[in-house]
């Protein structure tokens, strides 16, 4: 018997209408994600990955279909602080220092969790140091480079402690090394705290390295082309990347993407 | 900086009244502007000016007059800037104050030899004389009039003995007890309050040693010296119109009302005119014509202002008033008009 799915997306469609521009973003998307799984969404630019992620996170409402998060609607899940969201743009607040931005998830909904931002301060500073921002704890976002801003966004999500991580191209502005380091950090956090991760990426290697499942989407209007389970042992290591199986997955996914691309 | 230009002109050189030359001379002054004291309120000399215009007296004398509705003391500023050539001043005070500030203007006629400015209290008030005002709240419009300050001073007080407060034009501040006394015009607020069914009493500074005057016609001196016949004939037309206005109060009010583009309260204005006309008649000397003003009238006003520290130095009456035009148009108390022209028609 199949595991009960935790995140269940059923026949979801989404269309944007704005000033004469009508865009079909998602058509009839169905997707189940089990609890504690790491699932990547991959697909051509503009195919609706961000839209899907935002629908799962309850930030945008689908036109039709249903989304179910462990028996709750996305809104209810939001309410119970189930989500840590890393938006495609880092969304740092310009009037807050890096550390204050990190503390935001704890300041919000204090009543619900009983946590206070102060309690977590040391922890958050450590987290910042671990992503290489130890010197910029009290800097304002304007003073950071693009990649540094993105790292703050990632560290903020890591620090917030919610069980579902929704990450929208979180590593896009990072160099290979930093990317790798933070990837492993993400895997550690995911395993240690049993999180469920939905991860949007353009990097096939990254998707294979991190995921239990890779969902391949087709170009706009976004549909799910194929879902590939990655049966590689955990913990994933650098050596694994050299393995033939790993390379096969990469080739397979690349093939699917190429096939879908309408050029 | 005493640049008074109202020296008397040798009137023998001027063309005679009614002559073609005189009409031409008057016409050559072009359009002249007269600013009223308060819109088209029925106070002298505004009511006379409007009627002179309406009755064609200005035309007859070759005057091209534009009447501009004014707002209280502002007329003096326009006059000083020669934006208007003639203006109405509620009291001699306004003219004196302006001269004290360097305006080259003077009063050439004053209709009422007593004041309309007074203090109003409720009938049941315990204020009967100036001494009773000690410690009381007096409401005023803009500034406490000099005659009131003088009244206090003549009765051993200063403004520090009362509490002055500037109020708007709504006299119900008195009836509602917000103030104990209110500075008013005899012709206006008593009527308004009585219409509302309130019993009120006037405390007249004139009866407590602080008499003033009202209804002054003022001119720009420089302009007047250039156009003596125009000023003379303007005044003449006004005083001619006064006869009509005095005899036909209601019709006169109709004329004013027609001039007003905006709201007009005929009843209130009729009352205003009737009260002020009575004051004019009551205060006027039998030997002199309407509008006559005396040195004493102006000097007592200047003294009041000096005492009240509104002006800094004393002013001679020659500097603020000029009776040359009155002298030219009156023979005794008889107004010189155009007898031959009338006969010819």
């Amino acid at each position: 018997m199949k595991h009960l799915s935790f995140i269940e997306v059923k026949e979801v469609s989404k269309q944007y209408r704005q000033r004469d521009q009508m865009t079909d973003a998602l058509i009839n998307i169905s997707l189940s994600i089990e609890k504690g799984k790491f699932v990547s969404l991959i697909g051509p630019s503009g195919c609706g990955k961000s839209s899907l992620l935002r629908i799962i996170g309850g930030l945008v409402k689908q036109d039709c279909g249903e989304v179910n998060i462990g028996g709750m609607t996305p809104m209810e899940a939001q309410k119970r602080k189930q989500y840590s969201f890393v938006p495609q743009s880092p969304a740092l607040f310009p009037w807050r220092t890096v550390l204050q931005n990190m503390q935001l998830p704890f300041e919000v909904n204090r009543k619900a969790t009983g946590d206070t931002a102060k309690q977590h301060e040391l922890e958050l500073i450590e987290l910042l140091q671990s992503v290489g921002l130890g010197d910029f704890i009290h800097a304002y976002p304007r003073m950071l480079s693009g990649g540094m801003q993105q790292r703050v966004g990632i560290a903020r999500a890591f620090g917030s402690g919610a069980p579902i991580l929704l990450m929208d191209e979180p590593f896009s502005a990072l160099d290979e090394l930093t990317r790798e380091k933070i990837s492993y950090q993400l895997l550690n956090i995911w395993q240690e705290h049993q999180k469920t991760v939905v991860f949007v990426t353009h990097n096939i290697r990254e998707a294979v390295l991190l995921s239990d499942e890779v969902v391949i989407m087709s170009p706009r209007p976004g549909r799910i082309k194929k879902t590939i389970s990655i049966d590689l042992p955990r913990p994933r290591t650098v050596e694994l990347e050299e393995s033939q199986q790993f390379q096969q997955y990469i080739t397979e996914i690349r093939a699917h993407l190429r096939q879908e691309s309408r050029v | 900086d005493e640049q008074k230009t109202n020296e008397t002109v040798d009137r023998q050189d001027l063309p005679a009244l009614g002559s073609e030359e005189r009409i031409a001379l008057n016409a050559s002054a072009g359009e002249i502007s007269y600013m009223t004291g308060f819109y088209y309120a029925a106070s002298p000399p505004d009511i006379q000016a409007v009627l002179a215009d309406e009755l064609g007296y200005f035309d007859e004398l070759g005057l091209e007059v534009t009447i501009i509705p004014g707002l209280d003391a502002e007329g003096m500023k326009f006059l000083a800037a020669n934006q208007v050539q003639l203006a109405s001043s509620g009291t001699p005070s306004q003219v004196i104050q302006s001269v004290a500030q360097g305006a080259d203007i003077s009063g050439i006629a004053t209709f009422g030899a007593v004041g309309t400015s007074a203090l109003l209290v409720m009938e049941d008030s315990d204020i009967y004389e100036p001494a009773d005002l000690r410690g009381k709240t007096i409401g005023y419009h803009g500034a406490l009039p000099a005659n009131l300050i003088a009244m206090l001073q003549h009765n051993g007080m200063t403004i520090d003995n009362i509490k002055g407060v500037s109020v708007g034009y709504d006299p119900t501040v008195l009836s509602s007890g917000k103030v104990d006394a209110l500075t008013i015009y005899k012709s206006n607020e008593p009527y308004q309050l009585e219409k509302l069914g309130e019993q009120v009493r006037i405390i007249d500074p004139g009866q407590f040693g602080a008499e003033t005057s009202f209804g002054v016609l003022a001119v720009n001196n420089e302009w007047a010296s250039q156009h003596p016949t125009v000023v003379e004939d303007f005044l003449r037309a006004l005083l001619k119109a006064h006869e009509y206005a005095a005899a036909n109060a209601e019709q006169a009010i109709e004329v004013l009302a027609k001039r007003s583009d905006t709201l007009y309260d005929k009843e209130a204005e009729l009352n205003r005119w009737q009260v002020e006309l009575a004051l004019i008649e009551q205060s006027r000397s039998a030997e002199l014509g309407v509008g006559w003003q005396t040195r004493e009238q102006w000097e007592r006003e200047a003294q009041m202002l000096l005492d009240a520290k509104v002006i800094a130095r004393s002013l001679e009456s020659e500097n603020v008033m000029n009776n040359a035009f009155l002298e030219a148009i009156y023979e005794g108390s008889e107004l010189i008009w155009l007898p031959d022209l009338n006969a010819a028609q």
Partner: protein
Amino acid sequence: MANDEHEARGYQPPKAKLAKRFKRFYVRSSFWPPLAAFLGVFLLWELAVAVFQINPITLPAPSDVLAEWVNSFNFYVKHAWVTFYEAVLGFLLGLGVAFVMGVIMAHSPVLERTLLPIAVLANVTPIMAIAPLFIIWFGFGTLPKVLIAAIITFFPMLINSIMGFRSVDENHYEYLRSLHASKTEIFIKLRLPNSLPYLFSAAKTCVSLSVMGAVVGEWSGSSQGLGNVIMMASNYMQTTRMFAAIFMLAIMGIALTNFIRYVERKVLYWHVSSSSWN
């Protein structure tokens, strides 16, 4: 998009039909709530006058005011037209001058530091006090009223336009610099569109300030316009008439404000503020 997000909050148990219909016809309508507001104010006012037996000289009942307004409708419209004309001209003039000054200041920090104090001086001078001077200087016609309206309008417009010209996105600014756009081009392509939300914000304020300016201007040296009507009514203690004139002014102000909001919606379609609230 923000629209959809708003919807997303709507995951709620189905509601009673009545509530739904209330929502459709009242909550979402842009017509009923303001009407309800006005009716509410008027009713409260009417009640207060009746209950406390307020003297109509102090505060007339709105019903009386309305009756007076309807009865002398032509009179009020005639005077309103004069004031409207002055206010609109003054508004446009003030806007124009503020804009030109804003542009100059945007181009030269020295000129900014030189001109701003003068603007502040113009703003902090109580125009009501020097309004008569304007008439002395500019005659009895429309000009002095227009100028007073313009001066009142000018400052909020200037301050907001400066803010709008300044707070440009650094990335946009840098991109234009890379094209070696001149200051003028940076102004036209970036600062100006960027300042529009600020300018409209100011315009909504200023359009009624300009009406106020015209009214003040009409207090002396004029015999028409609603400012004059108010002055006369106040002197004759015809408070009902005064309020009818004020009512007319309010209608004018609301119409002008709504016009600005209409233009704003048309022009600022691209701005976040144009999507519905949260």
